[in-house]
């Protein structure tokens, strides 16, 4: 039962609109609302505001009013605007599952100690995806309502099973004659098997490449062992050839932070610049697969990674000031969430979580998982995020399965203890697989959550920069 809007008008000068607040630093608070607007103000002003004692001529009053933290007698359309903005941010939920990950093989030629997918040896052909499962996965994918479908080939090393990639791309394009979706293809590869045949195929079908580059040669080779010990050289050569054939922006790269990387963030970033990249994703190691068995995920704490990130971001900003455009991709995602009316579609930072509705994973063995990390967890014996099997379950039964719906309902941070009160909620997510792996349940007690500490550390630093450093702000706003 809803009341007439006159009931909500305040007799105390202004009416508070729903908002959350959290400490930003030692003296200031950040207040955010449900549509992602934010205001930074000292605690005294926050208390004045909540007590209906903030004078209208104060700068904070104007900021809070213009960003819909309050209504006064002159706010005529604020409620409708807030509702419209809320709807805009939620709209993308209706066209769910844009990312479809095909694990065409679990075999790999590298033996990285931080491998999170529990790769298999090159000769183990029983870890390849069959054509039957590929066909079933494609039929499954085209049931998704998303107008844009991205097929990402993962491994192991997917190029070890290139014939399956070829089949899936050609078949997807043929099926798309009927479905008419916006199709995109990406191969996530170490590029060691990037032959001229593969390159010609990628050019013909507009396939993009995503690779791993962990930094300068010695660091990269130490972290990514391969027979011959020349992973870095192979990757760099392949990047150069791919750019020549596919264009300068056809290859992106990711790095993984290890204990050895922690002191070398500037070197790592400089290597990306040396190789002509204009983007770098500073990424912490995740607690799955060999990373757990070989303790790579426990070598450093989240606080150390946040310091690594801060130093890295400072270095990247300096490089931009010197005239070379380079953006940190995780920061760019957060900036989108901070400033874009639609937020961001990044799977790991959604409410509800992007599992199943942001991404689906078709594993080499026909199993369907709610996320890439979900299948990594399964290789460790925890099948919490396995939704079903392509040969046995229908699209309807998987997408309405108790497993998926329960996880989705559990992963709306608005209802989670601590998250419900947190000012950073509009820019955050839930990451149920991480919490399942580290705390034993998908929601997780956030006081103990490394995910929460990382998000808060990064967001506090980023918003502090936006507020206090005008040169950094100018650069950062160009990344959105």
């Amino acid at each position, binding site marked *: 039962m*809803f*009341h007439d*809007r006159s009931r*909500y008008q305040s007799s105390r000068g202004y*009416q*508070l*609109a*729903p*908002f*959350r*607040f959290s*400490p930003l630093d030692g003296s200031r608070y950040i207040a955010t609302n*449900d549509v992602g607007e934010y205001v930074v103000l000292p605690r005294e002003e*926050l*208390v004045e505001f*909540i007590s209906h004692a903030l004078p209208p001529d104060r700068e904070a009053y104007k900021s809070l009013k213009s960003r819909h933290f309050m209504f006064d007698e002159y706010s005529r359309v604020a*409620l*409708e605007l*807030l*509702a*419209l903005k*809320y*709807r805009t941010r*939620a709209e993308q939920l209706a066209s769910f599952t844009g990312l479809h990950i095909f694990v065409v093989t679990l075999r790999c030629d590298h033996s990285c100690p931080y491998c999170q997918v529990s790769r298999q040896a090159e000769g183990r052909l029983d870890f390849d995806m069959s054509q039957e499962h590929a066909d079933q996965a494609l039929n499954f994918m085209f049931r998704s309502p998303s107008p844009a479908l991205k097929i990402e080939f993962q491994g192991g090393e997917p190029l070890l099973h290139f014939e399956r990639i070829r089949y899936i791309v050609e078949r997807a394009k043929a099926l798309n004659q009927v479905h008419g979706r916006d199709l995109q293809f990406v191969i996530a590869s170490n590029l060691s098997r990037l032959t001229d045949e593969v390159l010609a195929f990628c050019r013909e079908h507009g396939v993009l490449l995503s690779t791993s580059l962990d930094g300068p040669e010695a660091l990269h080779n130490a972290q990514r062992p391969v027979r011959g010990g020349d992973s870095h050289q192979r990757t760099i050569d392949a990047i150069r050839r791919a750019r020549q054939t596919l264009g300068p922006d056809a290859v992106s790269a990711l790095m993984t932070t290890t204990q050895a990387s922690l002191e070398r963030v500037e070197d790592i970033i400089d290597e990306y610049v040396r190789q002509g990249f204009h983007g770098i994703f500073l990424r912490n190691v995740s607690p799955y697969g060999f990373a757990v068995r070989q303790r790579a995920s426990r070598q450093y704490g989240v606080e150390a990674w946040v310091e690594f990130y801060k130093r890295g971001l400072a270095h990247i900003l300096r490089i931009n000031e010197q005239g070379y455009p380079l953006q940190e991709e995780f920061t760019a995602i957060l900036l989108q969430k901070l400033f874009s009316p639609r937020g961001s579609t990044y799977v790991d930072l959604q409410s509800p979580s992007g599992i199943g509705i942001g991404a689906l994973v078709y594993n080499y063995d026909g199993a369907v998982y709610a996320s890439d990390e979900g299948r990594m967890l399964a290789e460790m014996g925890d099948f919490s995020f396995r939704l079903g099997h392509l040969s046995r379950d229908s699209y309807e039964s998987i997408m309405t399965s108790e497993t998926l719906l329960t996880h989705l309902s559990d992963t709306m941070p608005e209802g989670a*203890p*601590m998250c419900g*009160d947190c000012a950073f909620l509009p820019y955050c997510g839930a990451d149920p697989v991480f919490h399942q792996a580290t705390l034993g349940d998908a929601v997780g*007690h956030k*006081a*103990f959550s490394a995910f929460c500490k990382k998000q808060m550390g990064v967001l506090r630093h980023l918003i502090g920069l936006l507020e206090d450093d005008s040169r950094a702000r100018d650069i950062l706003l160009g990344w959105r």
Partner: protein
Amino acid sequence: MTTKEPEAPPPFIFRDGAIQTVLDLRVYRLTAIQKSAYRFAERCTAVLGSPEADRLPVRFVFGPTIIEQDALETARLFFQELLDQELREQVGDETRALRALIIAQAFSRTDLIRQD
């Protein structure tokens, strides 16, 4: 005629790995206390006792490696957090119905709201 000075809260005393205090429920709502205790779970366990009249006994229990100075600082920060939680309760009381209205308005022209 003399006026009685308001009773000052006792200073924190760290003893046997814990700090004992009493909270006035006229000042802090129970929900605010519970939320603060949850948020501080990594630093200490706040054991809430049975309320008597308006007074709630609370015992902050620390891990075995804690030093007194850190324990006292944690107790101080707990009281700061309590003030924030109280403010949040205040905002929640005032805006809860409005948030429901905004969300209802946002989805009013979708199938998400049952029409019957």
